[in-house]
């Protein structure tokens, strides 16, 4: 486990906590998107490029878009 792994993991944990604490769903989704991209980076660091590409496209792309769409049709604040 190298320093970059540690930093990325730390960022992931911070993102996850922020999602848990914030009242604003929109910012939660944006942070979740950052979380997914960081996850993709981490997987790239762990030598799994296939998973990284898929996570970047599906986790950071489609899931975020779906969440945005759902929030735009419901309410923004918790």
């Amino acid at each position, binding site marked *: *486990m190298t320093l970059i792994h540690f930093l990325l993991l730390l960022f992931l944990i911070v993102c996850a906590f922020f999602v848990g604490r914030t009242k604003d769903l929109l910012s939660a989704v944006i942070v979740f998107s950052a979380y997914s991209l960081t996850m993709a980076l981490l997987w790239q660091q762990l030598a*799994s490029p*296939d*998973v990284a590409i898929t996570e970047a496209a599906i986790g950071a792309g489609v899931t975020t878009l779906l969440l945005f769409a759902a929030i735009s049709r419901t309410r923004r604040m918790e």
Partner: protein
Amino acid sequence: MMRTALEIVTLVVIGLLLVLVVREMPPFGDPTNPVHNEVSEFYLENTQDETGVQNVVAAIITDYRGFDTLGELTVLLTAIAGLLAVLRS
């Protein structure tokens, strides 16, 4: 307030238990771990000869474990059918 405290206590207890577990897990990144057994070696050594592709992960998802992928396509199809059924009703 009571509930939050209870949740935090539960999570911390689970977390402490997990710390114990994690301490004895196979070391991270060690090439002698149980997972790096003959199965992964077989995949890495024989994929080119047996399936004719270079990306071993692609060979696993579409050939060695192709049935999982069929299940996965079914998951997508189910999600769509369920979503449309719910939204159109």
